[in-house]
């Protein structure tokens, strides 16, 4: 596949689906899955532009590695927070977590 458009279309579809999941889901773990989709879409964009753009080095790949690492750290901490939320209020419905609402 030697055109740039299919990759960009794929990543924009993934991005929109991630946004849709973040907006519509109530379960915190499902929202996290949507965020993972968004991060994957941005990774595809980085690698695509690194292949088709005018770059001599692989900076896009290194950026993608950092994004993947950040996604791993983010997933670890977010799931720990979600588990604590479940321990404290007995549900992971993000609408129920309103104890700090004034």
């Amino acid at each position, binding site marked *: *596949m030697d055109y*740039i*458009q*299919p*990759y*960009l*279309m*794929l990543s*924009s*579809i*993934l*991005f*929109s*689906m991630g*946004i*849709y*999941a973040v*907006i*519509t889901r*109530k*379960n*915190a*773990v*499902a929202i996290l*899955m*949507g965020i993972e*989709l968004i991060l*994957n879409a941005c*990774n*595809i964009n980085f*690698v695509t532009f*690194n*292949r*088709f753009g*005018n770059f001599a*080095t*692989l*900076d896009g*790949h*290194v950026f*993608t*590695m*950092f994004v*993947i*690492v950040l*996604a*791993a*750290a983010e*997933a*670890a*901490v977010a*799931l*720990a*927070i*979600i*588990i*604590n*939320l479940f321990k404290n209020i*007995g549900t*992971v419905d993000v609408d129920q977590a309103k104890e700090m609402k004034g």
Partner: protein
Amino acid sequence: MPIPDLGILLFLGLCGLIVGSAFMVVTSPNLVHSAVSLLFTFFGIAAIYIYLYADFIAATQVVVYVGGILVLIIFGVMLTNKIENATITSKTHNQIPGALFSGILLLLQFYAIFNTKWLVNDNPEKSSTVMDIGELLLGKYLLPFEVVSILLLSALIGAAMLSRKKVD
């Protein structure tokens, strides 16, 4: 009718797999089904990286996303539900505004993609990207590379502290 290239057919199949399983991820009412669909999405994206000449990133995707993050997410699903029956449901809300917003976003992105004159120069494939990535990591990106270890340290300590059982 010309016979289409096998690589292009495989690419289209992969796109179908990724979009279909991502659709399952965002709409399936059963969270376990969502998590398993996420597996296919991640594998498909790893194959897309191979089309983009990024073999090391594809391996990283399989090792970190499929092997690590997905396991964590499945643990998160299993740990945060009162499971009496095998259907872990996830309620949804705001479907119509959400679909509208993400649909408009998608159309805008498609508009931008098709109306931009891309300056495409197809870089030749490198035989292995690992060497170049290693030289960049130890040269130009040395400081981020070291900072990542501190980030991982804080993530490990913070998450372990948060998820530990309180000892009374």
